[in-house]
């Protein structure tokens, strides 16, 4: 059984076909197919119940890399980690990276992922120069932003539905070395967060905040604000990349529960922080969770939910406070509560999630109906503010929620390959 990262839902597929030849056509399949990269998205956006998954991990070749201009063309199954390992010795880095480096380029485009630098750089799709789309009728469409037609904007954030992305070319950004200059500050309340954030955003290309979700309901909303930038050539440390551990087992129940959570959050909040900005390895800064491989197993066999919303700027402060209050009152909490403002660089995709405003991402152990009921209540707040939920993190949003959050969905639907579909797409459109 193929699973998405949160190990819910558990769906059966007809078969999984491994693609390994860039120039070959798509295999003949009975039923609908869906490209599947490294399976790091959540919910059912990378799943296709009863259909076929096209495993792209063997389409993992670099096609061309120009160390002078920082342009990289690669097959869609290449992992972001593989790109960093190749280009960083040449003083280049990914223009945008999500919180894990174990996603494929194809996945990063299809979900138009964003990172800690959204307020400066936009999302991943903003740095794609061109890509090739292979349709089930054998047609190969090379598309770039400038060119006519909407194939490009349909495919950026297109959830893998417009055809198979065979390769893409991206523009990298300069970085002198593997180090990041990072400033971490504790904040005691949401008000303080907004204030720190406003100051920091003009000076730091990367910003994000971790929130103690349990404290938020008590009117505090404490957390840690992290801001960073790539280190200068003269700023560097000797040292190795941090080693990874592996979470070793599938516990029968979630190890994250209200008791352990209180303890973990408290310890995390009170961790010793450096007084001044200090150097940190890029892997520690961008990918703290990659340090524990298969950490998703900590939630046990039933898996977990991720809930990520974006609220428009004018409604954000009140909306975030109301959401946190609701969650806290429910007694269900999240360790990975991440708060970040998204900037005004427009996303290129018809279905892109990233838009100006504030995004809050939370994860919850799967406690069945209790958890789903909470989500429905929080949905109401998101909807009232005119916000949206992130499809690549979703396993349960109602169709209406999707359609209001992504008003271009009908325009997008015209670009879907007739042989492609996903469990997510059927869930949010066939009602």
């Amino acid at each position, binding site marked *: 059984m193929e699973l998405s990262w949160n190990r819910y839902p558990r769906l059966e597929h007809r078969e999984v*076909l491994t693609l390994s*030849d*860039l120039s*070959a056509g798509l295999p003949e399949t009975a039923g609908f197919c869906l490209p599947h990269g490294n399976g790091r998205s959540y919910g059912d956006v990378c799943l296709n119940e009863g259909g076929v998954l096209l495993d792209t991990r063997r389409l993992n070749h*670099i*096609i061309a890399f120009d160390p002078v201009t920082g342009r990289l063309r690669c097959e869609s199954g290449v992992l972001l980690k593989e790109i960093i390992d*190749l280009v960083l010795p040449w003083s280049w880095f990914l223009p945008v990276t999500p919180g894990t480096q174990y996603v494929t380029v194809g996945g990063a485009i299809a979900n138009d992922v964003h990172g800690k630098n959204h307020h400066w750089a936009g999302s991943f799709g903003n740095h794609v120069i061109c890509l090739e789309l292979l349709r089930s009728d054998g047609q190969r469409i090379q598309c770039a932003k400038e060119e006519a037609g909407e194939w490009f904007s349909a495919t950026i954030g297109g959830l893998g539905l417009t055809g198979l992305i065979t390769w893409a070319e991206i523009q990298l950004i300069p970085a002198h070395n593997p180090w990041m200059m990072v400033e971490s500050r504790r904040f005691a309340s949401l008000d303080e967060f907004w204030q720190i954030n406003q100051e920091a955003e003009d000076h730091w290309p990367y910003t994000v905040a971790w929130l103690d979700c349990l404290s938020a309901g008590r009117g505090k909303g404490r957390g840690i604000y992290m801001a960073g930038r790539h280190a200068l050539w003269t700023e560097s440390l000797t040292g190795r990349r941090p080693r990874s551990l592996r979470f070793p087992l599938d516990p029968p129940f979630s190890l994250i529960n209200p008791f352990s959570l209180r303890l973990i959050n408290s310890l995390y909040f009170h961790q010793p922080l450096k007084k001044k900005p200090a150097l940190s390895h890029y892997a520690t800064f961008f990918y703290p969770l990659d340090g524990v491989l298969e950490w998703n197993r900590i939630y046990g066999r039933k898996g977990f939910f991720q809930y990520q919303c974006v609220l428009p700027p004018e409604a954000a402060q009140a909306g975030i406070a109301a959401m946190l209050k609701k969650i806290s009152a429910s007694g269900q909490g999240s360790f990975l509560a991440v708060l970040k403002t998204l900037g005004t660089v427009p996303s290129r995709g018809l279905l892109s999630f990233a838009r100006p405003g504030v995004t809050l991402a939370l994860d919850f152990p799967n406690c069945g109906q209790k958890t789903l009921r909470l989500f429905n209540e929080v949905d109401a707040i998101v909807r009232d503010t005119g916000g949206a939920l992130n499809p690549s993190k979703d396993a349960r949003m109602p169709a209406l929620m999707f359609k209001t959050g992504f008003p271009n969905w009908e325009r997008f639907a015209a670009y879907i390959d007739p042989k492609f579909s996903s469990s997510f797409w059927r869930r949010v459109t066939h009602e």
Partner: protein
Amino acid sequence: MSNRQRIVIFGATSAIASACARQWVKRGDSLFLVGRNESKLEGLIADLRTQSSTGQQIEGTTADLNDFERHEELFTRAEQVLGEIDMVLIAHGTLPDQQACQNSVSLTMEEIRTNGLSVIALLTSAANRMEARGRGCLAVITSVAGDRGRASNYVYGAAKGMVTLFLQGLRNRLAKRGVTVITIKPGFVDTPMTARFEKKGPLWAEPETAAYGIVTAVEKRRDVVYLSGIWCWIMLIIRHIPESIFKRLSL
């Protein structure tokens, strides 16, 4: 042995071999790659070149290795490109459909030819070249399936077992001549070749992990390696089940 090796890989576009190629390129080795599928081979060569630095040769050619007549020519080409050959990795193969083989003599013969005879033909040429120079390393991917014949997979097993036995003899002959012969026996590896299987559980390995095992085995000049190591113990047990019992099992 100099640090920079000149390596020829047969079956270079297979998942395990291309992962080996990447690790060797990062170490600074030069490669000559032989593969069946032209576009995949070109893709691999372009990929390896982006990872290489000045002075490293990365070349290749397509060939049908069942055409034994061409083998000499391939070695000559490789020597022209690389200068000399320090190492050969033989990694090509197919995983036959056992049922289909049972119903077809010609398919069975073809699978034995691809997985067994063509490897022996390549080894014969390569061994004589290395013996004449008095050094070198031959690494061949066989399989745990070659350790004992099983109903579900014995055509493949017989071909791989033949190669394993051939390598034993070759090692015995060349050990006195300074040439290393390495038998690599992977268990389950998650590659396109094993696409039909449900790939979960502790016995399945990623091609990159298997490749790391091969690169390490070559560095340490091992004789026989199981990938991963646990297969050594599994096959020890399987080999020692008495035939009177084994024939009744479904394995």
